């Protein structure tokens, strides 16, 4: 009796019905037999097949028997046809698979005892499953020996974190295909043919792309293994804990392998979630766990005594905090206390921090955006509207036009970057990139338009005007739009921002004709001083092309819990709906002045804010004006900093509290879509560190105002807060989008862009040994022409000078970057690049010169 299982299919797609192992299944036309079997829950063994890659059928392991076909068929490369009768477990199939394994084992060394894949090797499992215990091949196995190797092991390190053993390779090509199809990288290839086929790094290259860790993970055998896992522990001795990457805003799902007795995490692998990450991890997500076990973690609280920080107990530290905070409260009032919190902390910490500041202390000086310059005290309506738009990561896949604006996707949202590549490779997406500098995603882009730095809103205005002038879209309020953009014609705007009118027309036409548009803006916009006019320009573009009705648009949040921080009311002046909810939960809400990071720092300089609590943030290093941030914090009477490590900010603190990392307690995080995900506790807190929520609750207890009367209330209150609708309406009119510009300074001609390195994010990842083995020091990225003009060669020391600071960095010459721009990563404390920045500038300008020794 056949049981009909119908896979939910869109009505416009043709379907086929086939029978697999006596069960009938209906699938979309074009589905492979393997996928049809999987949809029935029938396991067909594979080596080379990967759900997110194209089928090649190179391993022949997925043999099935199909009636009326003379030979066994590889199910991963056979399209399901109407009326097919498939057997996946017949004697013939078993015989075929047995032969395949015997053939693979012909050249596979039986060095399982020394192989790191042992215990999780698919070849090992399938060999056991098919009860193959002998070999009919008596001749010498093919062996690859590295020249000059003294080892009896044939391992070759082909990248900072990748170890290759070519003897073990079964030529499934999964690594090469993933590198090419999913990551768009070409540093790994297959060489030679037949018996001596080998996978190896491209000649003269290292496998060090930002997704290289995936190659070791997807290898079905031990041919590619990770250096961080090398000879550490056997997989069967570890326990897995599901977690979330705390460094990516998309909230990539991860699995942590830990040993309970040693309280140690050994590695991270992906936990495939098709809605978010497709099973790919960027190296930052993969190697972030090493931050937890870094040697210089803060283990005990520190208190400043006689100008020196000395070790203290938690009781001493908390008593001191309570005493000093109540002193400040009594003498100068609660408005003299402020709080800064990192948007990488979990919901319980963020909400507890908010309640501590607003309910217990009674101040509105709370902010989570410590890396943005010149945040105004009043909320920015258009920016909030653009930030709170609903975004779905999986909707990127079937968009037919994707526009990336002001975002270096690879560095900010690596998994969205892979989605965009996927939409290009597997879908029919046309990709347009608008950025002040060229980015890595340019190879899949139909057009990459690089505008002059600081001309973000003009570039979008030029697109709008082109669309109107060429009659691509009709608008009833053309004059109003022109007025809003403050340019009379498209050509004038295009000239101002340095874009080609033809390119603008192509992009406008594509967006107008598209069925589904995804428009993503990123950190370059958020970090800009003029984020409000740029957001207005985005809203205008949305209105003209009605993007939100036929797709999605928005400014993406920068950190793993930025959305959560916004929802939980961590902004100084949160939306009215959040305020109302907080008031109803707490019975009161402070009506004092609202201060952002920026205005708090101004007030600290005026000595109007005397006490500050910082959790997890490092404003001295990451605030875009180092001297300003440092001087402001130095003026404080009392500074409490809670962090994982000793940082530039903890140096100034009166009390330093050791904070637990995300792996040491269970916490919820809200990703950029608004999806709430849980990172489970993997290990016990290291040293005397405590989770963020425990710290804020302990401080509140000492201030004699318990945050939650019962344990459940914390969860209940957070759940209530997350249910609040915070979406701000998109303006229904064309809104003025003219942004201010800096005065030109001929002495400093080159625009400086500060961002993250592809292998780093923020100020923690520098502690991960695997990530620093990829990129371990700051550099200056500049174009070949600019380098030639200053006689700079690759690796030369270059002096970068701005009106306020000077930094010397090694040069790295890149073809991608424009002549009037340089890029510097901000992740390395050894290179204080934020000291070059000035908070009131829109674009920081510098001059460079070669250091002559």
């Amino acid at each position, binding site marked *: 009796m056949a049981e009909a299982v119908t896979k939910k299919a869109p009505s416009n797609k043709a379907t086929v019905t086939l029978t697999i192992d006596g069960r009938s299944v209906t699938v979309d036309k074009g589905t492979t037999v393997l996928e049809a079997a999987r949809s029935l829950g029938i396991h067909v063994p594979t080596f080379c097949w990967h759900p997110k890659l194209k089928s090649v059928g190179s391993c022949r392991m997925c043999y099935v028997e199909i009636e009326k076909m003379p030979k066994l068929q590889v199910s991963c490369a056979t399209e399901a046809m109407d009326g097919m009768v498939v057997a996946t477990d017949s004697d013939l199939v078993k015989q075929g698979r047995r032969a395949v394994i015997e053939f693979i084992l012909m050249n596979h060394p*039986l*060095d*399982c*005892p*020394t192989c790191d894949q*042992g215990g999780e090797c698919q070849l090992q499992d399938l060999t056991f499953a098919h009860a193959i215990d*002998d070999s009919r091949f*008596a001749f010498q196995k093919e062996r690859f020996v590295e020249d000059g*190797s*003294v*080892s*009896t*092991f044939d*391992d070759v390190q082909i990248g900072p974190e990748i170890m290759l053993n070519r003897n073990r390779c079964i030529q499934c090509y999964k690594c090469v295909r993933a590198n090419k199809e999913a990551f768009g990288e070409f540093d790994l290839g297959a060489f030679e043919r037949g018996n001596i086929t080998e996978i190896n790094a491209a000649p003269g290259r290292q496998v060090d792309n930002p997704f290289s860790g995936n190659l070791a993970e997807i290898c079905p055998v031990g041919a590619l293994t990770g250096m961080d896992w*090398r*000879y*550490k*522990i*056997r997989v*069967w*001795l570890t326990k897995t804990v599901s977690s979330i990457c705390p460094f990516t805003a998309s909230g990539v799902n991860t699995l942590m392998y830990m040993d309970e007795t040693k309280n140690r995490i050994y590695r991270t692998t992906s936990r495939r979630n098709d809605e978010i990450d497709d099973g790919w991890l960027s190296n930052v997500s993969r190697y972030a766990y090493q931050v937890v076990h870094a040697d210089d973690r803060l283990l005990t609280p520190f208190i400043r005594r006689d100008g020196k920080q000395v070790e203290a107990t938690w009781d001493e530290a908390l008593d001191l905090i309570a005493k000093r905070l109540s002193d400040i409260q009594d003498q100068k009032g609660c408005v003299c206390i402020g709080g800064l919190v990192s948007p990488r902390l979990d919901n319980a910490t963020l909400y507890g921090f908010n309640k501590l500041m607003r309910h217990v202390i009674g101040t509105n000086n709370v902010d989570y955006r410590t890396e943005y310059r010149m945040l105004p005290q009043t909320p920015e309506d258009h920016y909030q509207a653009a930030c709170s738009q609903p975004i779905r990561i999986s909707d990127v896949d079937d968009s037919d036009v994707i526009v990336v604006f002001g975002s270096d996707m690879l560095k900010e949202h690596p998994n969205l970057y892979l989605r965009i590549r996927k939409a290009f490779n597997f879908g029919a997406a046309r990709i347009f990139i608008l950025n002040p500098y060229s980015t890595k995603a340019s190879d899949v882009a139909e057009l990459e338009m690089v505008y002059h730095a600081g001309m973000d809103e003009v570039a979008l205005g030029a697109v709008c005007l082109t669309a109107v002038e060429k009659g691509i879209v009709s608008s009833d309020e053309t004059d109003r739009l022109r007025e809003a953009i403050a340019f009379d014609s498209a050509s004038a705007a295009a000239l101002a921002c340095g874009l080609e009118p033809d390119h603008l027309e192509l992009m406008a036409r594509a967006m107008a004709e598209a069925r589904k548009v995804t428009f993503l803006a990123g950190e370059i916009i958020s970090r800009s001083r003029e984020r409000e006019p740029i957001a207005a320009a985005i809203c205008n573009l949305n209105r003209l092309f009605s993007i939100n009705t036929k797709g999605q648009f928005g400014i993406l949040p920068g950190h793993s819990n930025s959305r959560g921080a916004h929802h939980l009311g961590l902004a100084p002046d949160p939306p009215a709906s959040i305020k109302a909810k907080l008031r109803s939960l707490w019975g009161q809400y402070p009506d004092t002045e609202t201060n952002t990071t920026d205005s708090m720092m101004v007030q600290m300089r005026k000595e109007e804010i005397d006490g500050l609590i910082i959790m997890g943030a490092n404003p001295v290093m990451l605030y875009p004006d180092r001297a300003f941030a440092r001087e402001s914090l130095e003026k404080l009477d009392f500074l409490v900093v809670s962090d994982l490590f000793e940082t530039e900010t903890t140096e100034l603190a009166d009390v330093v509290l050791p904070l637990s990392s995300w792996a040491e307690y269970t916490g919820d995080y809200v990703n950029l879509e608004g999806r709430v995900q849980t990172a489970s506790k993997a290990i016990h807190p290291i040293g005397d560190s405590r989770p963020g929520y425990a710290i804020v609750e302990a401080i509140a207890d000492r201030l004699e105002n318990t945050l939650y009367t019962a344990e459940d209330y914390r969860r209940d209150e957070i759940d209530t807060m997350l249910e609040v609708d915070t979406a701000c309406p998109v303006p229904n009119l064309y809104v003025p989008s003219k942004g201010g510009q800096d005065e030109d300074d001929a002495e400093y001609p080159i625009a400086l862009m500060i961002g993250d390195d592809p292998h780093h994010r923020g100020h923690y990842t520098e502690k991960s040994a695997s990530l620093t083995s990829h990129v371990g020091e700051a550099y200056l990225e500049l174009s070949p022409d600019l380098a030639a003009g200053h006689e700079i060669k690759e690796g030369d020391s270059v002096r970068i000078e701005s009106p306020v600071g000077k930094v010397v960095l090694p040069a790295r010459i890149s073809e991608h970057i424009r002549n009037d721009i340089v890029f510097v990563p901000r992740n390395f404390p050894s290179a204080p690049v934020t000291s070059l920045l000035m908070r009131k500038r829109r674009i920081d300008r510098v001059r460079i010169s070669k250091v002559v020794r």
Partner: protein
Amino acid sequence: MNVVLRAIGNVFWSMPKGLAVTFKHLFKKPVTLDYPHQKKPMSPRYRGLHYLERYDDGSERCVCCGLCAAACPADCIYMEPEENEKGERRARIYEINMLRCIFCGYCEEACPEEAIFLGREYEFSDYDRDSFIYTKVQMLVTSPRKDNPFKWIIRKVRRVYGVPEPSL
């Protein structure tokens, strides 16, 4: 009455009978040994203190694969691998807790490298428990022992079934 007489008779008869056995043994070779001056030769199949074998060139056979620890029913083996100067996998820490060990010999059977064997040593005693955690240095033989019967059996089995000697 009969019962009483028989009992009396038994007493007088059984005493010389028992003494006869005793005196007979006076002229036999004793079964006990003058331990510790004399030692009993152990059966070739005796499972005593473990030792770690070396290759003929003197390098350690153990690659720290963890199979002995996985096979151990008493969970008394602990190991941590490392990469040696030649880039090969070797044990950094290899410890057996002899107080927990039940000398079942599963480790020997599980070992794919023919590195661990249960020897014939049975005299290990000490004054504190810590010293019963035997480390790699304590168990490693100084030179390859060729006399192990199991080694011979394993090699013979390999020859019979045509399994090549594991070579690295």
